[in-house]
């Protein structure tokens, strides 16, 4: 399976999705995205941090310092109620988008 770069703007959605399972710190989020996508999606790990700040500005997530499983200080993020709602609606529109693009592509194949 080839590895893919992430489409712009989808990282936020993925972060929200990984946080739906419970609070995580930055490194855990990066691992989770890789694992959940079966290593297909390539995320430059540092890119996670602007995304986390964007989501925090939107008040979709909030972060708090805590102690990790490795006994290290780390900032844990969790979804706010607004974030939970945003994940639901963003995921829906993503599904619609994918379906629509898929339809177009299939139609083209038939035509050629």
């Amino acid at each position, binding site marked *: 399976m080839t590895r893919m770069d992430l489409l712009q703007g989808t990282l936020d959605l993925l972060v929200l999705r990984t946080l739906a399972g419970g609070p995580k710190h930055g490194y*855990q989020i990066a691992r989770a995205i890789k694992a959940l996508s079966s290593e297909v999606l390539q995320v*430059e790990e540092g890119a996670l*941090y602007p995304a986390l*700040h964007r989501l925090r500005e939107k008040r979709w997530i909030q972060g708090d310092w805590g102690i990790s499983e490795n006994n*290290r200080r780390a900032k844990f993020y969790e979804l706010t109620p607004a974030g939970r709602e945003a994940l639901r609606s963003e995921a829906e529109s993503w599904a619609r988008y994918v379906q629509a693009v898929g339809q177009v592509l299939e139609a083209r194949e038939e035509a050629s």
Partner: protein
Amino acid sequence: MSRLPGTPRDPAGEDAELWEEMEAHLAHRVDDLVAGGMAPAEARRTAEAEFGDRARIRREVARVRAAGHRRGRVREALDALRQDLSFAARQLRRAPAFTATAVTTLALGIGAAVAIVSVVRAVVLEPLPFHEPERLVVMEMVTPAGADFSVSEPAFLEWREQLERYDGVTAFSGRGATLRAPGEPASVIRGYASAGFFPLLGVNLLAGRGFLPEEDLPGSAAAVAVLSESLWRARFGGSPEALGKTVDLDGFAFRVVGVYPDELSVLVGETDLITPLGASPAMDRGEHYLDVVGRMAGGVAPGLAREELQELAAWQSRTFEADRGWSARITPLEEDLIGTATIRAGWILLAAAGLLLLMACVNVSNLLLARATTRAREMGLRAALGAGTGRILRQLFTEAAVLALAAGGTGAVLAALAVPAIRSLGAGRIPRLSDAAVDPSALGAALGLAALATLLFGWVPALVVRRTRLVETGGARGGGSPGTRIRRALVMAQIAVSVVLLVGTGLLFRSFLHLSGVGVGFETEGRLAASLSMPDQSWHWTERGALLAGIEAAVAAVPGVEAVGATAVDPFSGLALANFVARNDRVPEDAALFTPIGWRPVTPGFFRAAGVEVVAGETFRDMDWSHDPQGPSPVVIDRRLSEILFDDPAEAVGAILVWGDPQGSRLRVTGVVEAVRDVSLSEDPSPLMYRLHQEIPWAAMTLVVHTRVASPALVQGIREAVTAAAAGMPAPEVAPLDASLDRALTQPRFNLLVLGSFAVLGLLLAVVGLYGLTAFEVRQRFREIGIRLSLGARPEAIRGMIVRERVKLTAVGIALGAGLAWAGSRLLESLLHGVTRADPLAWAAALTVLAVTAGLAAWLPARRATRVDPREVLNAD
């Protein structure tokens, strides 16, 4: 710690936090890699490579934060605005009298302005529905006496062929006809137009085409017709299939070739369908009946176009005997159709509405000023407590904005109510008024005005506040402060504006009284009018006399009918027939020296049915001309013509006159009757001559029926009698003659009522202004008044002192207003009939009304002031 929304940001702290976060990330990765067996140093390098450039990421995060910060500032500003708005609303609610007065005042001003702009725009400003209407002119002939006159066919054809400074010239006329099919037979107006009529105007036909040149050949017009939109809908259901079908006009089939839009009615009136004119150079040059419209060539100055027409008319006058002494003129089509009086009235109303709006603005800014002054202490206190000047100004500003918005909204509603009212007021007489609707752009302008008012009202009090230092507010008391001077000046200006409006209304009222009291010379009470059409195609002209006599006899037999007669001029329909006469014993050699007169064919019964008084001799006897067909025709003249031609009415009876020109037929005067006014109420009627319909069997006649009691049954009886006596004639519309008279008063009544309601509004605003000012100043001077009262001053003296100041103010305002009104009344002059702009009664009434109301507005608060208990006032602060 997570940052609470709204807590201050600390960029350096956040940056350090980010750094720590990224370090933690790397450490976790290194832990994992080392646990997988990698050497710590290599693990660190690998982790950093996977992570990416931390410096770049820091910059990116900083950008995200900055964007969030900007959004935060907008949010803060919106929050502040919300706070300001709700604070402003609270403040306004706490002063309901002030708020109600301010909003009502401004709403009335805005409402009036929007309504008038909407109406004037539809009637006056909206361009005519033609292509480049400014190049269209009405071309008329002018009689030797200088009166505008319609054009003969040969003259029109010569104009069309020879004028080079015009892109085209077209002619139009109309007369009654009967549409027999499809559908029920009905009276219609059939228009006649030359080829090129529609393209010259630039009218877009709804379907089909106009006339082809070969359908408009001299003397042989093709049987084709272009229908009006209304007729097309009524008779063909608006179907495109109508093209190619035929309509039956007076028994002849006409093929429908096109449909023109109803908006053309601004030019052709109630015309139902148009057929080719077929103008011929062989027609009598003395038959003037065409309306001619020309399109000036692009780039040609109107002066040059006029000059060319005048030169051609001068040539016609030299060349043709029938045109001797005649000339020609052009008028811009717009002026001709809408009327200079209406255009002028439109501008006057616009000016009045503008003045009213100005007054409303003045009033509100006055109210705000007064409020700002009383609130100077509040503002001073708030400033002392640390509210920034900017914040205070913004709050004042928001208050004004809330006021202006509320007023704008209310004003829009008022305008939406006023426009239909105005429409029904002038219905049927003022062209295009029925098109008037609240103009969205006027509404937009009103909202703009509200915004402008905000700026104005917001800043004036703000300036006052700015000048108010805290030290002053403790002791500031009314008197000669700049605020007071501004307020007085504003109230004075209001009084002046009010005087202008009142004087204008007074003058229009006097003029209206004059017009409605003008003796028309005939009776309208108990008289019914019915229009009859006896077109050539249905009745040969020799049959018409007997036909009409038969109809009159049948109508006279209807129970309840006292007398019946007929005239060619439907009163106040605007139709006027003109010709020339001279005394047979003093015939001038030149036709141009004959006396210009109005004339009309009537039946012998007309004078009794219409109640026209006989001054000398007698009116027509039935058939009396036919006894001596070779001798002079009998005519009846009116008192005016008798005064011009003879010294004494008795001398006129039996005299012989000459008709038209020196070779014209001879007429014998059988009697003299009172002058009547049936063309226009405002213009002096021409001297008039009546001729027998039997001799000049006009096709379109109006039956005048004198009844004892008008009832629907009687009206029905008349309609049935007409159709029974004239087979094939549609039943006529029957309407009281009063209605025609009323129609003639529509425009003056419209002007009067609209300007009158403005004047009432204006007076109201001025009174509110004066009362408000006085009440405010009295309140400010409570302390002074209290001291004076406690020192033993008599209340009357104090009342006198306050009222005297107002009287001075009012007198200056009235003097200013009178000057303005005198200058402005020049505009009104053309709308005044029977009164001059110096009419003393109108002026006296206007000034008295103003002085009395102003006096009351000043006296009431003054009286209240002196009822004050001195102890209470002195303890108040």
